[in-house]
């Protein structure tokens, strides 16, 4: 505690002005960087000095941080483009869902805010601020603490947080007290400097190194050299090549399976009923990973089994330098359809269509002929337009020209609807049978930035704990001319607990004195 010289109000040791009357308290030394001269304070001539000075300022750093914060929040007002329903056109989606605001949001590019040039710039500025502010402070502080003498000027000591004048008859015993509290004590003549946890002062710089590593990793991720993200859909029993691996990596889906929770389980009954549908328990694919041997372009390569394994959600597996994740599935995708064409007179003809790779012409029985004009593997209505959401036959639709002699009619055929586009309604085609298969979606990734991110995170945590869970405390004992001791103390934070520690040390010493 320090007393205000005017109103006698007791103030916190760290207070700069009296909380009661507002008058400036007796000047404390600014001990934040040991009063060491920093480059940003000394030089301000060249452009580099000015830039350095700008980024070295914590205040400017905070402006950048707060701008980043606001920009980050801005991106959550509407969903980002990656989260809008598959198959929707962004411009149309934002306008139809959110009106004028949505249109503006999309127009300003806020739907892809986190990859925008200006958001990246903000992160870059933040990184510059962290780097320069740290360098500007660390080296002067390090030197000042390394070279600090035991003997200090009286002005220095009397302007510390904790100051006391005291008769000490047995300094050795007091020093033992201090040592017991894990202080390291240096002596110079009859003066002492006790210090502990100096390493806590490096905490901020250590955590800033961690942060810079994280930002560096994020920067490296801008270059495709450092990572590879692939995704393959593989049908049950089939083998697919992993894209962009130079035709060297193949994965076979032996069997994909979905397990669901038992709806009669008394434990989960209520929740499953609330959900209204069965709740999945696991998504698992049995896979075989192959490596291509003696690969010659255009040839079917010889496959060598690398590994047989099981991949499921939350349990990715590693093979050939890649990590394979279970990250999608498609039940009952169509592999083939049997369509039945019918004319006015009731004459029918069945024909098979391969949904993976349909033929264009079908010569049918009864003199009918079908010509495939258009094919939508995963058809969806987008306003008035027919589009295909994906290239996978999940909801196939066809446009056929069906002809009999010189009569021709154009028909649109989906699984559960038929629309005549020419309006004559003489012919009809509908699905009578189909084969389906299950498809597993595997994400195959390799990312060399991950270890950098992880290392950055670890260093950041270390620095945080080092800087925030310990305090750098110092006690100076200086013998005065009259034989008493001037005791001064400093801590870099949490003044009240330091004050308690000081009082305790002196208290125990006093008790020992009398006893």
């Amino acid at each position, binding site marked *: 505690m320090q007393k205000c010289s005017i109103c006698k109000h007791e103030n916190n040791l760290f207070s700069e002005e009296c909380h009661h009357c507002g008058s400036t308290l007796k000047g404390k030394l600014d001990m934040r960087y040991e009063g060491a001269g920093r480059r940003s304070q000394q030089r301000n001539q060249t452009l580099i000095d000015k830039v350095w000075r700008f980024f070295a300022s914590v205040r400017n750093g905070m402006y950048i*941080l707060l701008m*980043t914060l606001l920009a980050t*929040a801005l991106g959550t007002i509407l969903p980002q483009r990656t989260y809008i329903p598959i198959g929707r056109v962004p411009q149309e989606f934002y306008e139809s869902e959110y009106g004028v605001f949505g249109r503006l949001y999309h127009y300003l590019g806020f739907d892809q805010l986190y990859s925008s040039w200006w958001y990246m710039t903000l992160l870059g500025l933040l990184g510059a601020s962290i780097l320069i502010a740290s360098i500007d402070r660390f080296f002067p502080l390090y030197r000042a603490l390394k070279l600090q003498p035991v003997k200090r000027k009286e002005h220095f000591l009397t302007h510390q947080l904790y100051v006391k004048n005291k008769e000490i008859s047995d300094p050795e015993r007091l020093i033992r007290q201090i040592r017991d509290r894990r202080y390291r004590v240096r002596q110079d003549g009859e003066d002492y400097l006790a210090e502990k946890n100096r390493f806590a002062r490096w905490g901020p710089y250590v955590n800033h190194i961690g942060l810079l590593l994280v930002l560096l990793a994020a920067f490296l991720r801008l270059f495709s050299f450092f990572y590879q993200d692939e995704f393959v859909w593989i049908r049950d029993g089939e083998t697919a090549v992993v894209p962009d691996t130079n035709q060297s990596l193949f994965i076979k889906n032996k069997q994909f399976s979905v397990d669901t929770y038992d709806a009669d389980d008394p434990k989960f009954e209520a929740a499953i009923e609330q*959900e209204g549908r069965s709740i999945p328990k696991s998504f698992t694919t049995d896979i075989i990973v192959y490596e291509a041997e003696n690969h010659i372009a255009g040839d079917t390569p010889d496959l060598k089994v690398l590994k047989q394994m099981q991949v499921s959600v939350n349990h*990715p597996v590693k093979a050939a330098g890649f990590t394979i994740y279970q990250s999608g599935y498609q039940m009952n995708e169509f592999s083939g359809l049997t369509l039945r064409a019918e004319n006015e007179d009731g004459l029918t003809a069945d024909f098979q269509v391969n949904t993976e790779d349909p033929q264009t012409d079908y010569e049918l029985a009864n003199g009918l002929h079908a010509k495939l004009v258009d094919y939508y593997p995963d058809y969806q209505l987008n306003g008035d337009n027919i589009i295909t959401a994906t290239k996978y036959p999940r909801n196939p639709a066809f446009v056929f020209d069906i002809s009999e002699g010189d009569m021709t009619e154009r028909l649109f055929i989906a699984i559960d609807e038929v629309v005549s586009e020419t309006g004559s309604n003489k012919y009809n085609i509908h699905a009578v049978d189909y084969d389906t298969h299950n498809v597993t979606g595997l994400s195959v990734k390799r990312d060399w930035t991950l270890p950098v991110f992880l290392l950055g995170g670890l260093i950041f945590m270390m620095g945080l704990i080092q800087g925030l869970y310990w305090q750098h405390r110092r006690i100076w004992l200086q013998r005065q001319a009259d034989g008493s001791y001037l005791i001064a103390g400093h801590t870099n934070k949490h003044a*009240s607990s330091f004050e308690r520690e000081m009082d305790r040390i002196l208290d125990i010493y006093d008790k020992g004195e009398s006893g």
Partner: protein
Amino acid sequence: MENLSIISGHLLEAAFISYLLGVILFTWSAAKQQHGQLERIAWGVTAVGWMAHLGFFILRWVYSGHAPVSNLFEFMTFFGMMLILVLLIMYRFYRYSLLAVMALVISILIIGCAAMFPRDVAPLVPSLQSHWLYIHVTTAALGEAVLAVSFFAGFLYILHETDQAIQHKRVWLIEAIIALILSVAGYMLLAISFRTFGFTATVMTADASIIYQLPPFFVPSDMVSSPFPFGVSVPDWMRGENAALKLNTIFVSLLAGCVLYILIRFFTRKRIGAALQPLVRKMPKDMLDDIGYRSVAVGFPIFTLGALIFAMIWAQQAWDRFWGWDPKEVWALITWLFYAAYLHIRMLRGWQGIRSAWLAVIGFCIIMFNLLAVNLLIVGLHAYA
């Protein structure tokens, strides 16, 4: 086995009642302004309540087979439990009854609101089946609970520092915060009483029927019939899922908050801030400032570890990417950026004391926003919790 679930439910009720008792005892002890027996009893009652709460947590874990932190009900009750744990520990160092009252009130409101969400034991979907579920969620909740202490201290600091006669803007901000807290209390009271009396209103729309647990003031624009004589159609631009229902809940809560506020003012005959001030006046405000800073200094690393680092490790495993700009992730980042700013801004001249206290209040609002609003207003991957 069925019994476990029932016992665990009763334990939560017991904890809730102990906490209510704790509030009363701590308030009483704060009003008496003396340390002693009463305080010890209050601490004891709260501690017993916490043991019951822990019992609820353990039994539910045993019964369901997974850590009960997988939906909003479970997460919020767990967050409430962490708040009390932090309070019980902190109280050993800083014996201020009012801090305990703040922590208990917020915890009670959170647990009360939690009970309004579906309470059934739900099975875990595949992406949640990981040890990281409880590692990530518990650390994040603990971090948020420690950070919340800075709000308790900050709010008391502001109450202490405000001159009720002069500083009108600040005075009204305090009243607004109190009214907001009362709104949550009002919502809880209304929802509990309506549930006890089995009230529901079914509003029919063109293609669905929506069940309201509260009186339907706001109804969808395509409403066909409502059991309530009047209903305001929600504006056309509110198109989110259940927009009418959510707006209605917010409106009824604010209404209830205002009614409670007026009722209390009727008894106190002055602003609630002014009525509370005598309780706060004796508290050493420098100590409050210290506690606020300390709680951020302790909570920030825990929050970083739980809500960002563990979260990212798990996301990489379950969703094959450690970061995907999902709203909940983004708001955890915003919370983190905010408290990072808090720690730096405090170093600047003149930003200790009252300004820090306001920052702590804003920080808690961000945490609460991430807890509730992101789930209810913004749909994302964390839809379950």
